[in-house]
C-alpha cells in the first residue's frame, strides 16, 4: 500500500492554502456555514428588541450548525463607534459588526465585498433607496448589507391637536392611515407658517440646531429641499451657490420660530420637548412617540408620524441606515454572509420590525408595508406613513452626494447647522459661506 508522508513543510503549506481558500471562498447559499461566528450588534433601546434578533440568529445557527456569540454594543457614549475603530486598528474582532451610517465607506478597504449577497437580495426584496446605495456601495462594491435593526427615517412627528388648533393643518387628513398622502400643500412655506402659528400659540416646533445627528439630519433634508449642495459628487466645493443662500435664508426665518435654546440641543432635547407636551412637531423616528406611550399617554394619543414638507427642489426626508458588515480579517466570512441573507428575508425583517414597535426600517422596497406600521396604536395608523410606503419623499442623507470622506466630515462637524446658526445670529451671508468653504476645503485633504 502506497503511503504518502506528510512533512511539516507540506502540512503548513496545505493548511495555509486551505485557510486562504476558506476565507476567500465565495458565498454559496444553502451550504452549511458551520464553525464559529461572533456578532457585534447595535444594542437596541427598545426593550425586548434584542431578544427578537437573538431568537432569529439562534434559529439560523441551529439550522446551519454554527456556534454563534452575540455582543450587543450600545451606541451610548460612542461605544459602538469606538469598538469599530478599535477592531479596524487591531485587525481583529467580530465576524459581523453593525456599522452606523458613514462607517462602511470609512472602512471600505477593510470590508468584504457583499455584492454576492446584495445582488440576489435586491432581486428578491426590491431595490434599496439611493441613500443606502450611496452609503453602502462604493466603486461598484457593496461594502455592507443594510440592516433592519436601527435604520430609521427622521421625518416629522406632529401633534394632531396642536397642528389643527394653531396651524389649521389636519395631519391625519394629509397623511391618512392606509391611503396615499394628500400632501401637495405640505411645502416649506406651509411648514414655516405652521411653525410661526404654533410658536405664537406657545407650542413651538422642536427642531434642534446643535451638532448632533437629529439637528444635522433635519438641516440636510432642508438643504436638499432647496437643491443646496455644499460639495458636489465630483468633490467641487459649491458653497457659494444661490440654492445654499436660499436654504440659509429659509433657516434664518425658521429659527425665529424655534426655541431660543435650539443651538444647544442634543438628540434627547427634541424628544423631551414633544413628550413634555411643549412642542407641536419634532423631526424624529417614533422613539419619542414610544416614550410618550409609556410616560405621557395623553400626548402619545395625539402624535402622528408623517412625511417631510416639500421644498422647491423636491420632498426629501432624512434616512439613517445601519449596516451589517464583515471585516476582511473575519475568519468565517461564508457563515457571516449566510446569516446576513437570513436576516434580510421578509420573515426576519417583519419580526425585527414588530419587536421594535415599528421603529426599525428595512431598506428594501418590498418591506414597507408590514402590518406593524398599520396596527401600532395609539392612535390607530400613527406609524402607517413612517416607512414611506408610497415613496412620497426621497430618502436622503445630509452632505450627499459629496465624496464620502468629505461628506462624513461635513456631517460629523455639523457644518450645515453651524452655518444656519451663524447666519441667523446676524453673521453676513458671505462671511458664513466663506467660513463654510474654508472648513470644507480642509476636509478635502487626503
Amino acid at each position, binding site marked *: 500500500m502506497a503511503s504518502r508522508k506528510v512533512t511539516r513543510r507540506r502540512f503548513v503549506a496545505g493548511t495555509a492554502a486551505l485557510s486562504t481558500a476558506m476565507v476567500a471562498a465565495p458565498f454559496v447559499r444553502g451550504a452549511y456555514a458551520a464553525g464559529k461566528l461572533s456578532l457585534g450588534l447595535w444594542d437596541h433601546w427598545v426593550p425586548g428588541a434584542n431578544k427578537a434578533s437573538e431568537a432569529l440568529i439562534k434559529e439560523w445557527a441551529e439550522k446551519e450548525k454554527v456556534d454563534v456569540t452575540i455582543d450587543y454594543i450600545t451606541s451610548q457614549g460612542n461605544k459602538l463607534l469606538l469598538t469599530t475603530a478599535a477592531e479596524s486598528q487591531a485587525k481583529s474582532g467580530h465576524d459581523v459588526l453593525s456599522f452606523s451610517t458613514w462607517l462602511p465607506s470609512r472602512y471600505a478597504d477593510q470590508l468584504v465585498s457583499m455584492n454576492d449577497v446584495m445582488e440576489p437580495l435586491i432581486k428578491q426584496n426590491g431595490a434599496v433607496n439611493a441613500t443606502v446605495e450611496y452609503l453602502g456601495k462604493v466603486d461598484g462594491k457593496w461594502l455592507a448589507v443594510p440592516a433592519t435593526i436601527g435604520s430609521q427615517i427622521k421625518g416629522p412627528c406632529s401633534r394632531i391637536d396642536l397642528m389643527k388648533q394653531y396651524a389649521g393643518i389636519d395631519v391625519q387628513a394629509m397623511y391618512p392611515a392606509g391611503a396615499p398622502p394628500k400632501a401637495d400643500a405640505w411645502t416649506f412655506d406651509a411648514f414655516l407658517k405652521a411653525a410661526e402659528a404654533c410658536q405664537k400659540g406657545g407650542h413651538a416646533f422642536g427642531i434642534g440646531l*446643535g451638532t448632533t445627528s437629529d439637528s444635522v439630519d433635519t438641516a440636510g433634508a432642508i438643504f436638499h429641499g432647496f437643491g443646496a449642495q455644499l460639495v458636489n459628487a465630483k468633490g467641487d466645493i459649491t458653497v457659494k451657490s444661490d440654492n445654499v443662500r436660499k436654504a440659509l435664508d429659509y433657516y434664518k426665518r425658521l429659527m425665529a420660530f424655534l426655541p431660543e435654546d435650539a443651538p444647544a*440641543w442634543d438628540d434627547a432635547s427634541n424628544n423631551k420637548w414633544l413628550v413634555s407636551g411643549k412642542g407641536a412637531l419634532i423631526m424624529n423616528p417614533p422613539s419619542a412617540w414610544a416614550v410618550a406611550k409609556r410616560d405621557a399617554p395623553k400626548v402619545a394619543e395625539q402624535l402622528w408620524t408623517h412625511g417631510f414638507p416639500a421644498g422647491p427642489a423636491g420632498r426629501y426626508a432624512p434616512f439613517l441606515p445601519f449596516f451589517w458588515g464583515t471585516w476582511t480579517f473575519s475568519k468565517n466570512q461564508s457563515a457571516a454572509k449566510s446569516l446576513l441573507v437570513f436576516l434580510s428575508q421578509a420573515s426576519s425583517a417583519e419580526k425585527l420590525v414588530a419587536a421594535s414597535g415599528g421603529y426599525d426600517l428595512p431598506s428594501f422596497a418590498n418591506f414597507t408595508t408590514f402590518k406593524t406600521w398599520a396596527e401600532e396604536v395609539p392612535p390607530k395608523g400613527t406609524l402607517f406613513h413612517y416607512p414611506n410606503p408610497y415613496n412620497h419623499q426621497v430618502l436622503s442623507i445630509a452632505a450627499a452626494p459629496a465624496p464620502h470622506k468629505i461628506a462624513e466630515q461635513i456631517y460629523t462637524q455639523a457644518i450645515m447647522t453651524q452655518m444656519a446658526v451663524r447666519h441667523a445670529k446676524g453673521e453676513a451671508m458671505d462671511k458664513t459661506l466663506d467660513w463654510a468653504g474654508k472648513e470644507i476645503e480642509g476636509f478635502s485633504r487626503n
Partner: protein
Amino acid sequence: MADIAAPSSIAGTGDSRSSLHKLMQRKSTVAFLMALPLILLITILVAYPAGYAVYLATLNKGMTRFVGFGNFTFLFGRDTFWLVVYQSCLFAITAVIFKALIGFVVAHFVHNIPSKGQRKWRGMLLVPWVIPPAMSTLAWLWLFDPSYSAINYLLQPLGIDRIPWTGEAGWARFSVILVNVWIGSPFFMIMYLAALKSVPEQLYEAAAIDGATWWQRIWYVTLPMMRNIIAITALFSLIVTFANFDIVRVLTAGGPLNSTHIFGTWAFRVGIEGGDIPLGASVSLFMVPILAVAAAFILRDITKRGSEV
C-alpha cells in the same frame, strides 16, 4: 541616600555569582525591582500609546503614507484649530486660577475650624472631587438643561431672565469652567490645607510679636512657606485641566458653534467621530509642547528655590 553594596554575610563561590549577589544587594537594584511593575504598567498604558499617537500623527488621512509634520502644518492653517487653542488656554488657565483661589480661601477656613469638627468638613468638601466627573457633570447638564434648567427655575422668582447656560458661546464657556472649578477646587483645598498644617506655629508667633497684620502674615509667612506646593499643585492641575475631556464632552460636546471645544474633545470629534485618526492624534499631541514649556518653567523655579533653601 548612599547607594552602596550592603555587606554580604554569605560569600559567593564564583565571580559572576558574587557580582550578581552584590548587584541584588544594592539598594538601587531593589528599588528598581520594586518599581518595575509600575514601570511596566506605565510603559504599556502610557509610553506605548503616546509613541503610537506620535506615529499616527505622522501619517496621512488614509493612514497609508508618512507625511512627517504635514498634519501639524495643516492644522496651523485652520481657524477652528486656533479657536480650540484659544479655548483650551482660556479654559485651563481660568479654571486653575479660580481653583487655586477658592482652594486657598477654603483651606484657611477649614484650617481655622477646631480640630474636633474639621474632619467632617474636610470630608464634605472633598465630595465634588471624589465623584466621577462624568457623573457629576451629568447632574450639571440637567441643572443647565436648555429647556428645563433647574437653576433658571430658581432664578425666575428673583426676576432674572432665563440664562442660556449652554446655548450661547459666552455662557457655555462660563458653564464648563464653572463645573471644572467645582470639581477641582477640593484638590487644591486639601493640598493647601496640608501645606498650612506644616507651617511652624512659631513663625506666626514671631510675626505677631513683630506686630504683623493679618495680611502681612499671609504675605510674608504663609505664602512663602506654601510656594512649592502652590507651584506643584498648579502645574499638576494645569496638565489635568488642559487634558480634560469629560466635562466638555458631557456638558456641551464642544458647542455651540465649536465655542467650547478643547484639545481633547476636538481631537475626538476629528479623529474618532470624523474618521481622521492622524489629524485627531496631531490635535491631542499639540498640547504636549505647551505643557512641557509650562512644566519646565514651574519646575525650574521650584528647583531654584529648593537649592536656595
